[in-house]
């Protein structure tokens, strides 16, 4: 994990066009951005697309970073918004092309979907939650962000995050109670 102060410095270097600094920032956060996007979008290719868009936005908007939050939470916020946009666009244009850089013949990717990809039963359970509840649960309980971090990423007060989490988990518990969990 990188010290937040260093990351803010890195981002300041991105503002003046330092590509190396940008790549460092990207390497620090690409895994979690991908994971968040995959959990929100439920589709690897779309998640990779959203991850790409997120970092292009980070590059473009680096100078808008005001240092009020950690660089990481700023980036995850962009990622969540990028995913929302993608979901909206998918509704608008149901037959969207997949990005070119993703090779469908990549055997690793296919295997990944099946094995280490998302757990189907968790996906199915999360799917019944409204996006507000779902994203709070994803960021907190799956990604392990702290309450203030989740609040920052979602742009809502900590109290709102808590009540979304509590209610979200309550709904999940009901669903699980009806199925596997005793």
């Amino acid at each position, binding site marked *: 994990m990188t010290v937040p102060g260093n990351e803010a410095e890195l981002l300041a270097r991105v503002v003046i*066009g330092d590509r190396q600094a940008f790549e460092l920032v990207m390497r620090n956060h690409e895994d979690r951005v991908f994971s968040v996007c995959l959990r929100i979008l439920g589709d690897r290719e779309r998640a990779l697309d959203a991850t790409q868009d997120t970092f292009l936005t980070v590059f473009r908007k680096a100078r808008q970073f005001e240092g009020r939050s950690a660089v990481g939470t700023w980036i995850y916020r962009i990622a969540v918004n*990028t995913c929302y946009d993608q979901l909206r666009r998918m509704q608008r244009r149901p037959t969207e092309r997949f990005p070119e850089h993703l090779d469908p013949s990549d055997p*690793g990717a296919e295997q990944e979907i099946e094995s280490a*990809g998302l757990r189907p039963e968790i996906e199915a359970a999360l799917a019944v939650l409204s996006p507000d509840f779902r994203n709070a649960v994803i960021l907190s309980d799956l990604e392990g962000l702290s309450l203030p971090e989740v609040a920052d990423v979602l742009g809502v007060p900590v109290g709102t995050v808590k009540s979304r989490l509590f209610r979200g988990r309550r709904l999940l518990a009901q669903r699980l109670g009806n199925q596997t969990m005793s």
Partner: protein
Amino acid sequence: MRPSNQGMHEHDLDLIAALADGSTSDAADGAASGAAGARSLVETCPVCRAEYEAQTEVIAWLAGSPTPAMTDMERAGLHRAVRSGIESEKPAAPAAPWWQRLGYVAAGLLVVAGLVAVLQNSGVLGGADGLAESAATTVAGEAEAAGGAEGTGAPTEGIPFVAGDTAEDFDPQEAPTTTAAASESLTLPFAEFADEARSSQTQREETDTNEDDRECLARAGLDRHVVVREIEDEKTYLVVMPEDPAEDPVVFFVEVPECRIVFEDR
């Protein structure tokens, strides 16, 4: 919260849920409703205990989920795509245009400064305007510090000499009026127009998108969007945002009459 039919208390389920995820300390506003109180309720009240167990089970269940990871191939593809995305953005450059433009302005200043110096030396400006002189030396000095970037025109590795000092002073709100006009040859600073559009949210509710524009938006795949303003440059662009103010303020730039999205800013 619902009235208790088990014990003599109202079940504060959020307090119990906070105990389950360990966030009670920051939630403990009331004196009696801290973690200790919650813990004793879990022990004595079946309703509170059920809530506690449900919350902890869900948390544990979710925590056991593996974190999805990119394959090496996916990661390499991502890096390639982002790199080429940045490259292809450069000419149209929403990321860079402001410093590029400042680079041109600085280059212009250098020319002016050079002229002043030449004229001074040749005695045309005999009385040596003090202001012009100091301006000339300052700019020339900065250029020298930057490693003599004068000849190159477009700044490459040496760019920070302009950006370094001005980045913090740069106000995106001012940019559309000042910098767009100053640079005919460069693409419009769409990202900055977008920020401006976003900052005047009321426009979205007040706007009255006409029939032609609506048809154009539909052709661009932007139903339920409105035109918040138009930009006249060499071409005309509609600045478009979602109709619903509750939606994320994504700003689209639609070229007319082609009705094509040329830029999208989120």
